[in-house]
């Protein structure tokens, strides 16, 4: 242990002379504001504006998936309806069905 630091006075003097020499970051202020804007404190719109590409790409993807799913499901359901209606139509004109139901 350094004997100079054994006295509190020497330690105080040492800390008094201590200077941190860190290079200045020119982007520090912008970075702080960017983080504030993207944080929860500034609301979702600011978050959206800070990440337009990723949110836009995800939205586009779900629009496409929704379109494919919606179209496919509607066609599948229409085909099932068409089949049921055609069956009912044929049965209404089929004497075998009429006789079987009596």
């Amino acid at each position: 242990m350094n004997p100079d630091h054994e006295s509190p006075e020497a330690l105080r003097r040492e800390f008094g002379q201590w200077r941190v020499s860190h290079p200045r970051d020119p982007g520090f202020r912008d970075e702080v504001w960017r983080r504030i804007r993207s944080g929860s404190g500034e609301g979702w719109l600011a978050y959206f504006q800070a990440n337009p590409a990723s949110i836009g790409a995800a939205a586009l993807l779900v629009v496409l998936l929704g379109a494919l799913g919606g179209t496919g499901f509607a066609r599948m359901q229409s085909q099932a309806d068409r089949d049921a209606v055609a069956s009912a139509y044929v049965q209404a004109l089929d004497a075998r069905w009429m006789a079987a139901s009596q």
Partner: protein
Amino acid sequence: MKNLGLTIAFIFTVGAVSFLAFYYSNREDHLERARTEPVPVAWIREEFGLTDAQFASISLLHETYLRTCAEHCDRILAARAAGMPAAEIAVIESECVDSMTRHFRAVAALMPANAGARYLDLVLPKIASFDHRTAPDILGASGQ
């Protein structure tokens, strides 16, 4: 974290709106309406894009055939009541099938060529799908 949750909710909503918009724009409403009709005939008009004159002719044919169908039904019931052999009842049923097939072909002939072919593709397999064992159950289940 809250914004991430809101973003996921936003994207989910966009996807749901897209799904519903495409679902309803691709639904064929005339089929859904036809499902509630006791004897669906009107669906033919929209399904096969018929003119008023074509549909009127087909409706007339349909009404006429309903009487023929009732006669066939009476014959089958009478044959069963008389205890006729199954082979003879099958002959009557076969006449019914031939008559029905002719009727469907006559209806198809009143339609534009492509529509007529599609109509036959849809209805003719239904004649063959009749099953004596399941017919009463299906009719009972559908409330007819």
